[in-house]
Every structure is written in C-alpha cells, then in structure tokens.
C-alpha cells in the first residue's frame, strides 16, 4: 500500500501539473479538494482519466469521483480494490 500511495501521489503531481510539489508535500488523509490542494472541477475530470489510463478503472459519473478523490488514503483503497491493470 505504501508503494501504491507514493505512486498515486507522483501521478497526481504529473497529471495535474502541481509544479514545485513533491509526494512528501501531500498528506495521506488531507482533503484533495477545497482547502487541501485546491483542485477544481477540471482536475476531477483529469483524475478520472488517470484512473482509467493507469489503473483500468472506468468512472462514468464525475460525482463518483468526488467521493473517491476525498483523500490519498481513500483513493489508494479504491484503486487496490478495483484496479484491472
């Protein structure tokens, strides 16, 4: 799980262009949206693309994304339960 968490953080930094951030800067249980990393609605959609591209998980509805992308911990759990690649 540790490894997956680090990998998810690295992927997020890359796809969302979070310049000047390192995986260590992102806390595992901090919210990703709102006051956390300050991500917006396009970032949610971009993370949905990342889920499919990297882990083979298809999310139909952006509203589902909001739940899954609550924090790095929630994301990691969801990915390890549902990944197809």
């Amino acid at each position, binding site marked *: 799980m540790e490894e997956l968490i680090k990998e998810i953080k690295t992927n997020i930094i890359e796809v969302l262009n979070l310049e000047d951030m390192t995986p260590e800067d992102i806390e595992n249980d901090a919210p990703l949206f709102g006051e956390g990393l300050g991500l*917006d*609605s396009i970032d949610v959609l971009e993370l949905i693309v990342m889920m499919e591209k990297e882990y083979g998980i298809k999310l139909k509805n952006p509203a589902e994304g909001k739940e899954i992308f609550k924090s790095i911990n929630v994301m990691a759990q969801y990915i390890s339960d549902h990944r197809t690649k």
Partner: protein
Amino acid sequence: MYFLADNIISPLGNTTEQNYRAVEAGRSALRHYPAADAAVLGGCPAETFPKDNVSSEPYVAARFSAEQFHDIEINGLTRFEALAARSARQAIDQAGIDVSAPNVVFVLSTTKANIDNLRTGEEPDETFIPSVAAEHIATYLGFTTKPLVVCNACISGVAAIITTKRLLDAGFFDHAVVCGADVLGRFFLSGFQSLKALSPDECRPFDIERIGLNLGEAAATIVFSTSRSRFRVECGAIRNDAFHISSPSKNGEGAYLALQAIQAETFHDDLSFINAHGTATMFNDQMEAVAISRAGLSDVPVNGLKGFFGHTMGAAGILETIMSKEALDHGQILATRGFEETGTSVTLNLASVNRTASNKRFIKMISGFGGGNAAVLVHREDEEGISFAKIDHSECKINTLHHIIVNSHTVTLDQEPITCHDCGQNLLVELYKQNIRDYPKFYKMDPLCRLGLVASDLLLQAESDIPQAVIIFNHSSSSQADRSFWATVSDPNESFPSPAHFVYTLPNIVAGEIAMRHGIHGETSFYILPDRDEHFINKIVNSICREKDFVNALVGWIDYPDDEHYLADLSYINKA
C-alpha cells in the same frame, strides 16, 4: 444595424424557411449514434473516419447525413468551408449585394473551423487555423476585404453580431456577411466526452431531468446593413464571469451584467421573449435562470432551441438569432423541446409549447467557456417613419497608458527592457517566478495562456486601475493546445482525451484567464486574423471604444505559434 437577408443550413433544411417550418412543427435533428470500433478510430486520419461514426461511446447529436454532405460539397473546399460558403452564398444572393466592394466585410464565427485537418508530428499545415479557413471561404465568395474570425467559444455567434454592429455603426463598412459554422469530428466529440458534458439521450433544456448537452452541426448567415429594414439589432453586450474557465458562475454574474447592460442602453417593457442558451447541462441552465431572475426578467417568456438543433457551437448564436427573428415575425414563441418540469432554483416563464405573441422585441443570450456571456436585443419596426439618432461616425481618441512586449528572447515594459536570462518557454516560467509566484494555476495553462498571463500581469503591475475589458487578437489560434489535446486522442493504443488540454483548445480562454486573474467582469473578446493587420485591428478597437460605457481596456496581440516565435504585444488603453 439592420437585417438584410439570412440563411440556415442544418440537418433540418437548407433555408431559414425550411428550418423554421420544421421547428414550428416540432421536428428535431437529434439522432442516436452508436460507438465506433476502437480499432477504426485509433490513429486514423480524420478524412478516413466513417462520417457518421467518430466516437468511442454512443452519443446523440444533430449531424448531416452522408447524402446531405454530398450536396454541400464544393470542389477545393473542406466540409466545414463548403458548409459555411453555401450558407453565406444563399444569404448574399438574397441580399443582392456585391461582396467584392471595399465597404463589405466577411465575419466568420467558429470555435474550431477545420480542426479535423490537424495532424501531429508532420509538416506544418495551417489549414486547421480558423483564419486560413475564413480566407478560403471569403475568396471563394469573392470578397476583396480581409475576413475577421470571431473565436469566443460558444458565445462566438452573438459576439460576432455585436462586433459587426460596432464596425457598421462606426462607419467602417456598410454591409457585413456574418456566418457561423462548425462541423462535428472526433476532436470535438472526444473533447466534450472528456468533460462528461454530453447527454446519452436527447437534451432537456431547463428540465429537472436534464443531464447534459447534444452537439450539432450547422451553418447560419446574416447579411447586415446600415440601410433601413424591418429588423434591427438595437444593442448588445459581452460580459465575463471572472469565475472559472469551464464552469459558469453560481450567481450568473456575467450573464446578469450583459442583460443589465442592454437594459440600461434601452429599456423596454415590450419584450416578446428571451431566447436562452439552454444547453441542458446542469450548471448552464441553472446559471441562466439565476441571471434572468436577477435582471428582473423572470416574467418574460423564455425558450431554448437546443432540443431541435443540438448545440451548434460557432453557429449557435447566429442560428438561434435568425430563428428568434422569424418567430417574432410570425408572432410566435417557439417551444423548448425537451422541457417538461422546472429544474432550476428559480422558476422561469418557460415556453414548453409554441405560443402566440404580439410584442416586438426579443433578447438572445448565450454563455460559454472562458467565462464569456453575451446578449443582443432585436427589434421589429412596423411603424413607418421612425427616425433614430444619427450615428456619429467620428473616431474616438484613445490614450495608450502602458505597453508591454514579450517575445521568446526579450521583455520590454513601457520601453524599458526587463532583465531576463532564459528564452523560449522557459522565459515565461522565469518571468512567472520572478514577478508573480502566487498563482500556481500558471503551471496548468497551455503556452498561449502562460504568455497572456505573464504579459498582462507585468503590464498591470504598472497600473493600479484594473481594466474593464480584455480584447485579444492573434493568428495561430490555440495551435499549441490543439496539438497537445490531439496527442491525447490520436494514439491508436492509448486514446485518453484530456479534459484539461481540451479546454485550452478554445483560444479565447486566454482572455478568460486574464479576466479571472484580475477580476475583470467587462467584455472579453478574441479575434483571429489572417495576419497582423494594424489598420484592421485599430478599426475594431476603435469601434469598441466608441461604446458609451467604455472606460479602459487591455488590448493587443497574443500569439504562440511555437516556442521560438511567440509574441505578446499588449497595451493598456483608455478613452481620451
């Protein structure tokens, strides 16, 4: 400015009359299309796509059939160009004007023109750039003046009408052929799919069960003139939300301000109806309802036409204005197909079926990516002999208060060079780190927006008064973002269309980003020209400055063809 002639070519018909009759009878152009086989889509050049099947997911859209496109074809022109040219030709013939005269201008409203001509990793091919398409069309039609492309995302059509009115009112031209068009290819479909904005069923504007929009293809043309006729564009306004580049403002700020601006210009209590944008996305329709209510217009009948034509993008503002003008002429308010039950937080007077009406004015409103909103007021003049205030053709005096030039090697602010070490795209990062630092969104932007953001920030650091409007011109449109997005789509094995790349393929986003950064709620406009023609640019800027409420603006050229040849040349101007 008066309507002289018009035309609509859509899957419902090839004339305004045919389209009006179809919609009046409740006929829709929306159809269900199945998903294409992924192997068929992967990496295929656009022209080999099966014409009716370019999506990896099933979808609903208003598309021309293969037979209809066959009838539209013109030798030497692309599908997009031929469609626009046929519509423009019909309207020109009807108007009986000579388009080779120097007092006639061609204005093209489009979002992506020939975008499916785009290739990655090959020899430069400029035919996907909208101004190149505009030149092909204008030459075919016989124009001798240079064409103007209004590329303001979904509001392009109404923005083109407003721009044209100003040019005619200023006396720069006597007639204008304003044509809006877009065709559907894989670029558009995959982009809107990545934004999860498409409805899998026929769209339901303003309805409680609406879940998204349907795309449509069409061309629509209006020939405008300074000579008197029965229908007149009384006034229009463009305003920005300054909220988000792809989500409308929660309180409908820009749309409300646009409605307020046209009411302030000329208030009438004899509005027949408001033709809304009504895309049937959750956020757009809610935003419009709030804006209409804030403007005190909740009692005015409202309709939306996307259930008949889909969202025809660059054509939408013009097509829907023509349909509304026809409805006014027929004493009707057309039905909002797909609407049954109110699905917005404020209740509007929505026309769910055709109604009769006798009033003489309507408002066309529209909103789009980049935070832009626009509205125009159209009037049917039945009374003979009404005289209007004589139009003042004198040019207005403009002061340039500050000026900046940023190119790939040098930066000059008010004629003083700014020291920098990097060049190319790294120069923009250096400028950001040196002068801005507190706006990490910079890193998410495409090169055109990075250039615009850095240049406008430096310029406005020299000025405490935030400008009211942002008016940008260029040649290369959003070519860098177009290529980046296409790269995420066209890989035969790994097609994952990127929503973040797609939004930047609308070049007006640069004006929207600047408006958002500085809280500018006035006009944001983006124009694409065949070349950097200062004379033409000055005419457009001058015509904007003649507006009664104009105070100051950030205007200029922002072009990013590649990392070596980019240029931002911006001025902060005010009315003398």
